[in-house]
């Protein structure tokens, strides 16, 4: 398993999608920094003109933080899907797996090795992006994390890492029994479903429409990535622990009017576990 994990980890760095994601991430972080710089200047001007309101400042700060985390989540989701969706299917199609599966190793170890390799790479990249976003925000708006605790920031990192891991585990399931292209399309559709479902749930909460809320909950159960993002934002801004802060993050395109409970985190871990088990079971019986 360690041999496969090591090779998978190294192989990702050679994929074009990694290079593209790295360039896009750097570009995004630069533009994001520029945007925050301008906003900070505007805030200073507003404050000196006496028009500053603490709640509005906090709201704008949270929106910018939300935007940063949202787009970085999107980038890492892109990397997770593109890098892993062909992890098994493309190697079956090319015949690369023939020389590996015929070795005295369990098929289970091949799946776990690949998952570990991709997972470690995605987790490392996620920590880098998460830290970068938080540091940029802290630099321009030092008060943004006043309501957060070290534990909530750390839990935020874990949730941020869970997002690509959910997509990775699902893409691996599809990769064992579908062709690469089909697996990729299906994974992206499900990711989109999670996003749309998340929006609907937010709107449903805002207008107290239980049908929209239920649609959102069901879509989160099918694809928990968006629910994880909202949980992440609630943790990082400290609104989960401080109900007063909910107001500052409940509005705007990156707002969270109804943060998911901790049960969602448990469900996500269960979701990943089931996906891994499914991948192992399907791959064990797969004819190559």
């Amino acid at each position: 398993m360690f041999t496969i994990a090591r090779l998978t980890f190294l192989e990702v760095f050679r994929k074009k999608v990694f290079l593209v994601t790295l360039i896009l991430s750097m570009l995004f972080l630069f533009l994001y920094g520029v945007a925050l710089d301008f906003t900070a200047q505007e805030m200073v001007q507003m404050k000196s003109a006496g028009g500053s309101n603490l709640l509005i400042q906090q709201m704008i700060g949270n929106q910018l933080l939300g935007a940063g985390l949202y787009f970085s989540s999107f980038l890492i989701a892109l990397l997770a899907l593109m890098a892993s969706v062909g992890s098994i299917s493309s190697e079956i199609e090319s015949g690369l797996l023939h020389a590996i599966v015929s070795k005295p190793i369990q098929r289970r170890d091949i799946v776990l090795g690949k998952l570990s390799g991709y997972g470690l790479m995605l987790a490392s990249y996620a920590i880098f992006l998460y830290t970068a976003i938080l540091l940029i925000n802290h630099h321009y708006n030092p008060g943004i994390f006043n309501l957060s605790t070290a534990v909530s920031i750390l839990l935020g990192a874990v949730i941020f890492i869970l997002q690509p891991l959910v997509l990775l585990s699902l893409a691996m399931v599809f990769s064992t029994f579908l062709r690469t292209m089909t697996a990729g399309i299906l994974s992206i559709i499900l990711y989109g479903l999670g996003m749309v479902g998340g929006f609907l749930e937010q709107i449903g909460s805002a207008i107290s429409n239980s049908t929209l809320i239920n649609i959102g909950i069901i879509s989160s159960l099918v694809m928990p990535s968006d629910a994880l993002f909202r949980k992440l934002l609630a943790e990082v801004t400290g609104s989960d622990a401080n109900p007063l802060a909910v107001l500052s993050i409940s509005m705007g395109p990156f707002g969270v009017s109804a943060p998911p409970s901790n049960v969602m985190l448990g469900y996500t871990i269960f979701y990943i576990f089931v996906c891994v088990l499914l991948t192992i079971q399907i791959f064990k019986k797969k004819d190559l």
Partner: protein
Amino acid sequence: MLAIETHNLTKTYQGQGGCQGISLAVPRATVFGLLGPNGAGKSTLVKMLVGLLQPTSGEAKVLGKPIQDAASRQKVGFLPENFRYHDWLSGEDLLRFHASLFGLSASESAGRIAEVLNMVGLSEHRHKRVGNYSKGMQQRIGLGCALLPDPELIFLDEPTSALDPIGRKVVRDLIVSLQEQGKTVFINSHLLSELENICNHIAIIKQGNLLFQGNWRELTNRQVQVKIILDVLGNENRLADAVPTEYQVISQTPIIKNTRYELLISCPSEEDIPGLIHSLTAANYPIFEVTPVTDSLEKIFLDYVSNRGWEGR
């Protein structure tokens, strides 16, 4: 103990194709050839034996262990037909990766990799990326991967398909050397002329069914013929008297009229050929050439796959 043992091994796809009821016994320390036309089920059989396909029914053992047990492949090498390797790795790194899959320690693999690179003639290219190898070199590095565990049994699926004549000779010599070391080599190949020189035991399958297995040279020994070129000393009619009754003259063709003739004579066995020569020389016929006539592997193969079989010939 047999190297490979299968009982009614079957693999079908939606009830069709694949292999049906294959019962095979491959002795150890042999070069065993698996023959069959395209689509006969040869690759299906090999893939089942190396754990790539799950049998629909039946049983199989490799080196005494059931094929479902990954440990059965501990001392098994496999060169796939459509070989494909991580082309971004160097030849040496690729071998190191595969050695690790075989469970070799770092010190074990270091020595073995050097040996294997030497065996497949790629020592000088060890640091070159596999993606920059020619197709023949890629096939040789694949063979190297298969040789890493010092296998007791090695499956070669079309092992010379990408090789030039020199590369083919290297592989042929390697196969012979492996057999001399007591290894079993299981070859799936269309190149019957190559198999003829290195294989004694073969299996022929057609449409998923096993038609024959065993030592193909024994088939050729059932009817021994010998071609003799001699001088009839101006009287070809006397020839019949010189040939003992247990031999049968099948044909008598003049090469040079009234002097040199080519005789095709059927013998009871290969051991009886010297007796025939002795009788002819005793009758003072000058003999210029004696050639035992045996069926080629290709002829036997064609007879089987065209539904005639040996008995029908």
